């Protein structure tokens, strides 16, 4: 579904990604693990065209999206839950959700919103509250809900568990699996490698902007090098 072929990404003179190739098949949960600064977020953002890859190709559903603008890419059935959540703090929960369905009809969006509120009952309680007044976990739920509002075929999640309490993290991971069961393909970037690999079908390990390992989630969990570096031995 998503095929990334040999991309290189630069920030000015600095090269952040070297010859990265990743594939995510329909219906999979694929995770990308790596240390801080390995280039995980850069890879996510490169998929979204911000920044664009300086070379290499990205195909989504067979279509080359590597030269499209961010807005065009994100209208193709792809949605992102970005690092740091980035909810619109001055907008209400309702307004945040409907920002995710900007180009859909009101009736269709309302249907999806109802579905989101079923998944996240907390958001229903806070429906007309400003997003900035909510806790980190609630904001993360809102960011996921907002991404669902465009009815994407694939969701990119960038560190959804960052800074959250363990019980909330568990909820978030449950929701991710639920989304996959609904047929949404998931590409998940995590520092929380243990939990991510457990729900993932396959995983990639990124180091210094290069993919150094790829395997099934289970195999990576038991891989010695991965255990040493990312799972705390």
């Amino acid at each position, binding site marked *: 579904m998503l095929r990334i072929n040999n991309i290189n990404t630069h920030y000015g003179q600095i090269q952040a990604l070297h010859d990265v190739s990743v594939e995510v098949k329909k219906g999979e949960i694929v995770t990308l693990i790596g240390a801080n600064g390995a280039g995980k977020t850069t890879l996510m953002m490169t998929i*979204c065209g911000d920044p664009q890859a300086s070379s290499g190709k990205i195909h989504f559903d067979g279509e080359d999206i590597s030269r499209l603008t961010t*807005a065009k890419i994100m209208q193709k059935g792809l949605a992102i839950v970005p690092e740091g959540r980035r909810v619109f*703090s*001055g907008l209400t929960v309702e307004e945040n959700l409907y920002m995710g369905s*900007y180009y859909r009809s009101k009736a269709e969006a309302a249907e999806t919103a109802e579905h989101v509120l079923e998944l996240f009952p907390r958001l229903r309680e806070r429906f007309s509250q400003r997003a900035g007044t909510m806790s980190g976990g609630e904001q993360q739920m809102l960011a996921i809900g907002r991404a669902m509002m465009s009815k994407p075929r694939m969701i990119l999640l960038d560190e959804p568990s960052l800074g959250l309490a363990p019980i909330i993290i568990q909820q978030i991971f449950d929701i991710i699996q639920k989304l996959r069961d609904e047929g949404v393909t998931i590409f998940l970037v995590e520092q929380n490698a243990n939990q991510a690999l457990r729900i993932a079908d396959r995983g990639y390990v990124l180091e210094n902007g290069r993919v150094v390992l790829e395997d099934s989630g289970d195999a990576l969990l038991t891989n010695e090098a991965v255990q040493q570096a990312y799972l705390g031995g």
Partner: protein
Amino acid sequence: MSELSLYLLQQLINGLTIGSTYALIAIGYTMVYGIIGMINFAHGEIYMIGSYVTFIVIAGLMGMGLVSLPVILIIALVVAVVIASTYGWTVERVAYRPLRGSNRLIPLISAIGMSIFLQNFVVLSQGSRDVALPPQVTGGWNFGDPSVFEVSISYMQLLIWAATLITMIGLTLFISRSRMGRACRACSEDLGMTNLLGIDTNRIIALTFIIGAALAAIAGLLLSLYYGVVNPFVGFIAGLKAFTAAVLGGIGSIPGAMLGGLILGVTEAMTAAFFPSEYKDVVAFSLLVLILLFRPSGLLGKPEVEKV
């Protein structure tokens, strides 16, 4: 009432009138700044163009023998808004959009260039001398004891208040209720994230330039009718005043721009009440300096603190 209080009432009325138009122009600065963090120094020129279009249309329609004043004013309003918005959109498209993503100083310099260009364009096409139009909206109310001090509210002032009020209410509803208004607010919080939701943020940016220009054109129409005279240089000082109002209220905040405009207008009028009126600009810009020194985020602006 005493003579002094009546006199101050008169100045308050005058100040609110001018302040309303500052507020209208200030919204253009504040909306653009809120979204792309840039001061559009060509905005005053858009106001000036709105004033010229108003005069040209009114003179043209009267030349054609049209006598109904409301019809003339409505046509002038529509034409001024459409032409000024076109200029606003074009300026953004030509002078700012290609520079997006570059150092913040670069679009600022481009804006100053655009301002000089538009001013000289009008000098060349319309001449640099004052153009006058006889008062169109005449008459008013007088009250107070004629032997002490007579306070007057002209119909023109009432028209300015009413037009400003309607425009502000319309804008507030648009920003708070409509889908595009919501997108404007989202853009001013996080332009990149709005883009990541598949929304073409260039179109939202263009929209803010169009709204700002339309409001400046309304101010242009009202003020040029109020003063009865325009020249190609009126945009400069009006732009500076409106910019001061926007900073005073808190740049980036629409209610701030409205409040800042009114406060600035009243402050100027009160200054003119006690000192020679040349001092009103001194006071206005001293206010700008003081605000920048002691409360750079303005009266209603948010200090730049990120909640993590």
